[in-house]
């Protein structure tokens, strides 16, 4: 019964935003000029004035002692991503009650992290930074860059899902089959991503996972030696090219 009403309520439609307590946009930079590579990832508050972008770019270049050509590139990249974010901002997205799996698979300096857990999309109080902080604390990670990286990875995935739900909302409106069908349509379209709530949270099942599934959802953290880092780096670059 509940699932019916959940899908059908008008609460489904919310204005586009990152579904966390702070509406922060994840920005990723990957700029190469004259053989010099600059990669970075951080969160940006979209309500900051755009003039801040240039200021930020300049400061970054100054702090990291990069050649000044980077300034414009950085600023441009940030601006592009921001604009893209803003283009979604006026629109509606279907959130409803969705629990999505988030996967982490990243390397930060010497630390490798692989993880898999569930995240509730319509929990607008959720906080990826808090999650990242607890993660690092529990796993005893000392590298201070890991936490933010985790938070950004989560945000990116949430961002993507939010974008998807905007497009699916648009499509369902365009669809000729009407409101009901539209909901079913959207549910099935993104259903692959979302977790079957009834199956997992319904009365017949337990919310305690079976033991054999525990290591699927267990975080994996590893510290690499320098050679392994180099090897991985090389492989990543090959992939990108």
């Amino acid at each position: 019964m509940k699932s019916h009403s959940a899908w059908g309520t008008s609460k489904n439609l919310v204005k586009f935003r990152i579904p966390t307590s702070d509406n922060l946009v994840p920005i990723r930079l990957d700029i190469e000029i004259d053989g010099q590579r600059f990669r970075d990832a951080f969160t940006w508050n979209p309500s900051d004035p755009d003039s801040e972008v240039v200021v930020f770019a300049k400061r970054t270049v100054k702090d990291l002692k990069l050649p000044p050509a980077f300034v414009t590139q950085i600023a441009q990249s940030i601006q592009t991503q921001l604009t893209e974010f803003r283009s979604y901002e006026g629109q509606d997205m279907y959130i409803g009650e969705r629990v999505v799996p988030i996967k982490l698979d990243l390397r930060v300096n010497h630390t490798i992290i692989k993880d898999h857990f569930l995240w509730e999309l319509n929990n607008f109080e959720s906080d990826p930074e808090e999650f990242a902080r607890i993660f690092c604390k529990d796993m005893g990670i000392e590298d201070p860059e890991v936490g933010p990286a985790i938070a950004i990875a989560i945000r990116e995935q949430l961002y993507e899902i939010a974008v998807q739900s905007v497009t699916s909302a648009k499509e369902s409106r365009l669809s000729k089959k009407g409101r009901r069908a539209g909901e079913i349509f959207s549910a099935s379209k993104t259903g692959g991503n979302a977790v079957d709530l009834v199956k997992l949270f319904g009365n017949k099942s337990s919310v305690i996972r079976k033991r054999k599934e525990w290591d699927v959802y267990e975080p994996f953290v590893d510290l690499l030696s320098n050679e392994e880092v180099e090897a991985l780096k090389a492989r990543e670059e090959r992939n990108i090219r």
Partner: protein
Amino acid sequence: MEKNCQELESYSVPSSSNWFSWSNIHEVERFSLREFFDGSSITRSPRIYKEYRDFIISKYREDPSRKLTFTEVRKSLVGDVSILHKVFTFLEKWGLINFDVKRNNEGDNCNGNGKTTSVGGEEEEEESWKGRVKLEEGAPYGVRVVAAPNSMKPVAQLPPPTSVSVDGGRGIGEVGHNGFKWPPLASYSDVFADLAQQEKKGLVCRSCKENCDSMHYEYTKEGSFILCEKCFKSGNYEENNSADDFKLINSGNQNNVWTEAETLHLLESVLKHGDDWDLVAQDVQTKSKMDCISKLMELPFGDRMLGSAQRKRKFLDLTGDVSNLKQGKLAFKESQESAKVEDPSHELKDEGQQNGYTDTEGQPLKRIRMEPTSNTTYLMNQVARISTAVGPHVTASAAEAAVTALCYENQCSREVFDEDNIFVDLKASAENIEQKRAAQGNLLDGDEGPKQSEIQGPSSEKDTIQINLRMRAATATALGAAAAHAKYLADQEERRMEQLMAIMIETQMKKLKRKMKYFDELELIMEKENAHIEELEESLVADRLNVLQRIFNAGISRWKDHASMKSETGSVQ
């Protein structure tokens, strides 16, 4: 709470969490984690919450000594990680998980006092979790409140001050351990019981064996005995004694003339000995205890001295400290005086100046009368008030006295406060502080100059570190006392509240019972009426039958009344 599993292990849980039970979900849980209980989502329900909670706690209890991390549990639970984390934090905050671990990690202040039980809700200290708001019971962090020195048995309050009086009552006028003289915390019956007995004994008339009231006659020859007035007049002399042999003693008029010298003596000794009526009576040799007291009351300012004694009784029942403030002060002065060989009157005058009394009577009083300010029951307020009302010296000596009193109770503070040098050090440090404050400028400088220089000689060689430690220990004990007092008050409040609740519930019950009774009575009435009406009905039916019978007998033709009879028979059936 103790959970007995097969190996009969027990788990420690703070007493504030004794609402927890495996089979139920408590209001606290419903309130803090209300998203599980408002039906807002299929992913959250009471059943789900219970599963999360039980799993997490069981997981923790698999190994209570290690700190359970959130990451460990979240892999095993299906659900949004933020919500899971909320449940986890909730359980951690209430000490249902990671409780002992925190304690052990924070160092062994308690000397192994790690286990707490929730019996009766009385606890010893629980460390406050840094940065978290937590209800604490018991004395604050770092202060240990135990029943007896070096025992592990916790108590919630300081031992009652009767122990102080026991020490003090060791002997009236006896010099205690540190040269303190403990004036007896005596009740009326203690002081005057024997007196009363004496008088009673003495006043039994020989012949009629009754108590003689005011006047009795004493036979002064061999084996004196007394006769009451009546017997004397009636000539009941016994054994041929003549009237001359009897001396009239008017017990109601004994020794009531006070000369000036006696009065002076009396006042001096009262100031010296305070409440100690035996000593006072000794000093004023010619007068008995009762006489002294009554004379004192008659004097214009005398009852001030007596009156202020009673006011202090109020503080006695909660801690011994505050009463020690006054009495310790007196006792300290006493020893101070005895140490010096000076003219007594000059001494007294000096004191008056020292303490900055502005007594208009010209006689320095040992006691100041405090207004009955105890509208506030806050101990610290009272202490602050008292200490502002008296001079700094007094406060210093009072603090010493308090510390010494506590030394009797607690072994470790005795270690901190080295008994031999307690006077010198604390006094010197107190004086130093006061000089810095310079609140009473010339008083301190003028009178104390000569005295201080003697004292500060030895004390200047003392470690300042020791003094610091003692200071801290002293403040810690003071705070502990205040905390214990506060707890006591809180307990009182709670009990009162419970009482009132009980009364309310009782009245409600009574109301309900009355209602029920009323309804019962109504029912009875209704039944009676019912019976009555049934009888009526029957009689009516019988009447009808009668009529019909007669009609029949009279032979009225049937078909005339056929129609009407048919209906009647129909209805009669």
